[in-house]
């Protein structure tokens, strides 16, 4: 536990000292919200805020997990860390810890800007529920990011992550809501983890109950992505140093 924390802190320090990483990670979600979310005055402001917060988490899942793992696993420093007396679980927990900090740091400006400029109708319990749903949806997408990191080589990771990131965000309705999508995309939507997550989020944002069907779908996506991530990790052990 102590070691996981030390790894998380070391990773945060490394990333925080790259302005080229730090600024886009923190500024992009809130910038997107300001440009594309705020002008949508006819949409429910709470629903919009929730969507753009999910979009911020999606970025951390695909880029910090996905691209980060794909690049680091090919570096000799990662091989060196594997010779230290720490299990894979410790290093993994460290990565999760630093990702959570970045997710919180990129979501917070979206929430603050929304609360400051739009009429957000959430009780204290409503805010907590929203935070919980945001965190719950981060699990399957974080696992998808990890699977991506272990299956895609470093050079391919960035374009693949961008494709999935933009595609999943748009087709899941995170930018426009499901009714703003072309008909074809709206029909495949339910097969995407982002759309299932969105349905849960929008319901929570409206203060409504959440159907078990969506939770079941998110759970199913989590299991599938976890299996893919674990298979990728095992496969990587044998091929990493060829």
């Amino acid at each position, binding site marked *: 536990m102590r*070691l996981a924390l030390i790894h998380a802190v070391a990773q945060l320090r490394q990333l925080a000292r*790259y302005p080229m990483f730090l600024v886009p990670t923190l500024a992009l979600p809130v910038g997107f919200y300001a440009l594309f979310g705020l002008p949508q005055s006819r949409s429910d402001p709470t629903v919009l805020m929730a969507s753009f917060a999910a979009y911020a988490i999606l970025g951390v899942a695909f880029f910090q997990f996905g691209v980060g793992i794909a690049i680091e696993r090919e*570096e000799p*420093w990662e091989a*060196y860390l594997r*010779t230290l*007396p720490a299990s894979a679980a410790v290093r993994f927990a460290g990565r999760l810890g630093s990702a959570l900090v970045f997710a919180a740091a990129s979501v917070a400006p979206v929430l603050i800007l929304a609360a400051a400029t739009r009429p957000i109708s959430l009780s204290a319990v409503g805010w907590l529920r929203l935070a919980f749903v945001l965190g719950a949806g981060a699990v399957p997408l974080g696992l998808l990011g990890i699977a991506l990191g272990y299956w895609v080589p470093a050079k391919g990771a960035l374009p693949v992550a961008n494709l999935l990131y933009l595609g999943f965000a748009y087709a899941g309705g995170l930018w426009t809501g499901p009714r703003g999508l072309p008909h074809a995309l709206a029909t495949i939507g339910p097969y995407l983890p982002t759309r299932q997550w969105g349905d849960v989020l929008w319901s929570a944002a409206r203060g409504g109950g959440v159907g078990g069907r969506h939770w079941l779908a998110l759970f199913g996506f989590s299991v599938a992505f976890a299996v893919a991530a674990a298979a990728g990790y095992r496969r990587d052990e044998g091929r990493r140093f060829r």
Partner: protein
Amino acid sequence: MSAVTAAALEGVSKSFGRTVALDGVDLSVACGEIHALLGPNGAGKTTALSTLVGLRRPDAGRARLFGCDPRRSASRLRLGCTPQETSLPQTLTVRETLDLVRAHYPQPRATQELLETFDLVPHARRQVGGLSGGQRRRLSVALAFAGAPSLLVLDEPTAGLDVASRRVLWAAIRRHAAAGGAVLLSTHQLEEAEALAGRVTVIAAGRVRAEGTVDAVRARAGLARIRIAATGVPEVPGVVRRELLNGATMLYVRDAGEVVRELVRHDASLEGLEVTPATLEEAFVALTEDAP
């Protein structure tokens, strides 16, 4: 073996695709011993060391650290290694990097002591990306010592070190062994093995070619090269390897005098005769063909 075995490879084989990197390699390092793994580039030294420290799973045979499987993290508590110098995290400071590694061990060396030993005191607060090549090398080496390990595994530790830094490292390695620690280092320089090691394992093309004291291995790898500016040199006993190069014949031999006497007895041409000590590289190639 008299002392406790710190590290061992037992019949380890490892292939990558169709390339055989290690073929039934045995190796053992005792506590208090400096052991050199000597071989030309591409011999399998790095594969052997990375199997020993748990980075790779052998296809056959097994690796042991103090009797335990190196792939279990607890087995690596008494192990210290060096990372490749180019791979250090660029944005951490020297002190942060040392402390990150120290945190993994129950009784690490003091950071200040490491900084002093490896001449890094003035650079403790600088980010690694801003260090010179030599300073980074010294930091890499300091990381191997950070956990006060019983066993040091060093892959080509002096490659890229200036003379002063190399002396510092050699002294630290000798102190470590004198205090009862074990050292396994890989090198392609016989001189380095001679300067440091008590025992040497020679590896070439993935197989152990010789193992023993430095003197014994030097006698075995110490070949002479006879060059004759003619072809059609007759077969004589005592030749480890022969090759033709640009119309000249090269003979790698243990006893040059005896072979020349044989050639004279066969009335062979001795045009442009040259006798020189074979380089280690040439000796390895010859020994590879002369496999025991």
